[in-house]
């Protein structure tokens, strides 16, 4: 089953011809409309006329997340504000989010790609989609919502939180599809069990999970506990939002990336060199049809590999492997992007606190937990418990306010954070061990 059979099964040569045509138009467009690209393409000494084959893509410079931050809020937009119909922003990055704008056509494309993703995951018209992705600045909620409507399925715009109500609605409304983060699905299943409700008795048959890294072990756990087919979805707000790539329910072996709208490359994150299919490296995406904020060779920092091998589902679009990590130190905690450096700068801002810290990320009762261990030295030590507790709470509050993530601050003895070769190991992520 396809949503757009013609485009989803385009022969390789046709995909590449379309990509080249769109890439040339993109380069011309950004050169014309975005001062940032006029400058960076100028520096690289290339213009649209130099792009004559897809391999010419490597002549183009990369775009980094920092470039988006430096262009806050609208400087990378290629369309005038009167054509922008929606603005989203990515979760916390040193106070300022990364802003993206969509034209009506961008929303249209996004809706279609999300609808294609739903169908690939095994969702049909007539399904009742329980959408627990957050609605708001985060692209998850509205992205999935528009795709569901485009498909013609019934969508319940739940957003996140209020687990009891989620369970009641899922039970009473007969939801057949669940969209949320993988960890929240397990959390809901456990909360339901405490209420005496077995998720396996619900009508759910497909779960579309993304916005945080998860393992095959977790997939098996979810499929067993929720009695549904769990499918991995990939997306990021810089590129579009959810629906950039999705596993097909037929194979569940790699995520099809919609190549008529995105050109993926896998590069060595150190050297920038393009790697061969099958080789692991950083995913780089060029958005060839976007109008609001098109990006050339955007460094996603996600580590994966790509294959162009035919897939049993019949889709001709390349598949990327499930994300196996990041080429930077970004952590995704309950769907929120967190860099250790952000926590460090918050700690440095608390009077007397030295940057001797360690982040322990775990999954308890299927929700991500973040523990921030802070070494207590004489500058912050007090002989009174209440002062130390107040300090811990103040740090917790600041991290919550600035990064939007709940954490537990644990005060530890000096030098108790393991230092190897004089350098402290800042992050211990226990989530992917399971």
């Amino acid at each position: 089953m396809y949503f757009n059979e013609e485009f989803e099964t385009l022969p390789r040569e046709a995909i590449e011809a379309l990509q080249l045509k769109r890439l040339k138009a993109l380069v011309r467009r950004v050169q014309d409309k975005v001062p940032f690209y006029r400058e960076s393409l100028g520096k690289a000494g290339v213009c649209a006329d130099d792009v004559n084959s897809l391999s010419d893509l490597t002549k183009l410079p990369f775009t980094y997340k920092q470039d988006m931050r430096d262009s806050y809020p609208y400087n990378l937009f290629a369309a005038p504000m009167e054509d922008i119909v929606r603005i989203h922003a990515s979760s916390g990055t040193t106070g300022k989010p990364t802003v993206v704008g969509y034209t009506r056509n961008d929303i249209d494309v996004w809706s279609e790609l999300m609808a294609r993703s739903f169908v690939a995951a095994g969702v049909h018209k007539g399904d009742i989609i329980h959408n627990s992705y957050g609605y708001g600045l985060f692209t998850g909620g509205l992205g999935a919502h528009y795709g569901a409507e485009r498909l013609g399925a019934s969508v319940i715009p739940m957003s996140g939180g209020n687990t009891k109500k989620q369970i009641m609605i899922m039970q009473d409304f007969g939801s057949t599809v669940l969209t949320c983060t993988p960890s929240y699905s397990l959390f809901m299943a456990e909360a339901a069990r405490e209420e005496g409700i077995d998720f396996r008795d619900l009508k759910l048959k497909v779960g579309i999970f993304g916005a945080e890294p998860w393992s095959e072990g977790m997939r098996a756990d979810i499929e067993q506990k929720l009695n549904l087919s769990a499918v991995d979805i990939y997306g990021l707000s810089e590129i579009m939002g959810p629906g950039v790539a999705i596993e097909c329910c037929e194979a569940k072996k790699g995520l099809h990336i919609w190549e008529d709208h995105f050109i993926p490359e896998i590069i060595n994150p150190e050297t920038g060199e393009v790697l061969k299919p099958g080789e692991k490296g950083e995913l780089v995406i060029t958005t060839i049809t976007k109008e609001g904020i098109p990006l050339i060779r955007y460094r996603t920092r996600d580590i994966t590999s790509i294959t162009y091998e035919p897939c049993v589902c019949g889709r001709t679009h390349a598949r990327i492997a499930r994300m196996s990590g990041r080429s930077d130190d970004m952590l995704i905690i309950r769907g929120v992007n967190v860099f250790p450096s952000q926590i460090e700068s918050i700690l440095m801002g608390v009077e007397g606190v030295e940057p001797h810290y360690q982040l322990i990320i775990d999954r308890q009762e299927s929700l991500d937990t973040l523990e921030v261990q802070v070494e207590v030295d004489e500058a912050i030590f007090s002989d009174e418990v209440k002062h130390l507790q107040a300090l811990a709470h103040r740090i917790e509050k600041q991290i919550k306010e600035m990064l939007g993530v709940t954490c537990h601050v644990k005060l530890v003895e000096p030098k108790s954070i393991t230092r190897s070769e004089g350098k402290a190991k800042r992050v211990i992520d226990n989530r992917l061990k399971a």
Partner: protein
Amino acid sequence: MQVEQISVFIENKSGRLAEVTRILGEAGINIRTLSLADTSDFGILRLIVDDTEKAKGVLKERGFTVSKTEVVAVEIPDRPGGLAGLLEVLDAELINVEYMYAFVERNAQNAVMIFRFDETAKAISALCAKNFTVLNGEKLYNL
């Protein structure tokens, strides 16, 4: 009129208290009294020893976070209502007790309590005015 107390930050895990007392023992330091305040994550060990500076030095050398605090040692009549009488004096002056613990004194008619007040000087003068005996450090370290 004040007494020196050292406070040591201790993580809430096994063996830490033993470690502190062992370090002090090996350095020939005698613990006069102690109290431990604890939370789920950490504890604060408060000690009065016969050589405050030396104790602070050896603990810091071994990587502990240590601070010195002035506390007040007061003799309390060892009979029913003894402590209540003292606390009433403080209450009347609106002085808060941050924490307190008992001092183990041998062969005496009076008990000795260690206090940390929010307003130390005011507390001492209020207690002296009501004829409570506030002990000085020298006397206490060598009891």
